[in-house]
Every structure is written in C-alpha cells, then in structure tokens.
C-alpha cells in the first residue's frame, strides 16, 4: 500500500479475504478524515460491494488478476476508485433490483447499495481495461477544511 497525504493506493489480490481487507482499510481512512461511525459503515459497505463486484464478476475469481483501490482525499470530498481487470460493464445495463421482477433475485443489489450510501456513483471503462467503480462522498460538516489525518492507514 502506498500512502501520501492526499492519495492512498491499494492493490489487492482477487481473493475472498480482499473483500474484508478493503473494507477494513476504508473504515480506517473514513475515520481518519472525520466521518462518524454510521457514515464510515456506509462508506465501508460501499467499497466492500465494489470489491465484491470486482472479485466475483469483473475478475471472475481469477487470482492472477488484481483489484486496484484508490482513495483521493480532495478538499471537499473523498473519491474512491475500485478497478478490476475484467471485461467491464455499463451502469445503465445493470438491472434495477427494486423492479418487481427482480425483488426475489439473490444478487444484483451491490451497486444499488453503493448508490444509496454514497453521494455519487459512476462506472467507467478505463483504457487500461476492466471496470472502474468511482464513488464520491462529501466530508461531514464538522470536519476541518483541509484533508488531514490520512498519513497512515
């Protein structure tokens, strides 16, 4: 893991354990930049769901592939990128889990939860390949103006 004040990069193996690890790191970062426990839970679950997507669908549980997580600590908000090495997908192609015909499906709620818990969600197909889930979260009002406290995560 490479750490600087404004940017934290983590490379994960495509392993089930990476899901918990990504969430643990996220909780530390969220706490360090001033999010309370409830907001930390929501941000942590969002990253968890993005990494589950990368692990299960993007990288198809192929251990040779990697999952890249980047935290950008910007002045007013945090941006979190989760990129896999799969075929990529378009957000608009993901079925609505709230549609009557999808309510009893056993999967397909991860991106919906991210959208519910974060302020912004986008999915891109970077030139380097794969899918990149980009999530944004505004800092709490109680937080100091400049990013701080993330020198270690």
């Amino acid at each position, binding site marked *: 893991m490479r750490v600087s004040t404004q940017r934290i990069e983590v490379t994960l193996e495509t392993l*089930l354990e990476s*899901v918990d690890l990504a969430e643990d790191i996220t909780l530390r970062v969220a706490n360090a930049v001033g999010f309370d426990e409830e907001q930390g*839970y929501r941000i942590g*679950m969002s990253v*968890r*769901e993005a990494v*589950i997507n990368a692990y*299960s669908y993007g990288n198809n549980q192929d251990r040779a592939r990697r999952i890249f997580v980047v935290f950008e600590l910007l002045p007013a908000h945090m941006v979190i990128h989760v990129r896999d090495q799969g075929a990529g997908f378009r957000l608009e192609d993901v079925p609505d*889990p*709230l549609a009557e015909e999808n*309510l*009893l*499906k*056993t*999967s397909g*709620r*991860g991106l*919906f*939860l991210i959208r*519910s818990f974060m302020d912004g969600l986008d999915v891109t197909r970077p030139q380097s390949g794969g899918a990149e889930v980009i999530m944004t979260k505004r800092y709490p009002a109680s937080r100091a103006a400049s990013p701080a406290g993330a020198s270690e995560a």
Partner: protein
Amino acid sequence: MDLKATNRDIGSATVVDISGRITLGEGSAALRTLVRQLLDHGRKQIVLNLADVNYIDSSGIGELVSSFTAVKKEGGELKLLNLTKKIHDLLLITKLFTVFDVHTDEQKAVSSFTS
C-alpha cells in the same frame, strides 16, 4: 466473527438464533446449509432470529432471499425476528421489508404460521 447458529424447536416451528456476520463466503454459505438442513428434516416453519447479527452485505441479503424462496418452494414459511437497525434499514431500502414477514416478538412470530 463468522456466523453462528443454534436451533430451538417450538411446536412445529424452529427458531434459529443467529449471531455474527452474514456476508460473502462462509457466513452466507452457513446460512444456506442451515436452512437446507432444516428443510431436509421436515422443519418448514422457520424463524430467523437476527438480533445478534451485527453485519450483513448484499450477499447476505441475497442468501436471506434464497432461503425465503427455498422454504416457500417446500410449502413452508420463513420469518424474520428482531432485526437490528442496520438490517432493518437495508431491507427497507431494498424493498424487501415488504417481502419478508418481520416480527419483534418471538411468541407472535411462532404463532403467526398459517398451518
């Protein structure tokens, strides 16, 4: 903490006290195995007591749905008891609160089975 569960038979109903996490991997798999074993033993009136489940992710939600439909397919009913606030909120935003029969009183949950 991984998922732990103990069963209590109350008449024709089985109350399953679950604690820990229902998440991708062992937690979800353990719940799946548990419900399938109950069905194999003819226990089709199942109450999942989730009071001590401190975390659930989308895989865990999916497993609850899978259990619900598996029990229903066998002619039984699966009910939920004592949701934590986090699970309550997750079921609300995913519209599953209207799908599951959710209770806060064990006795009422057990007596609510239709057959």
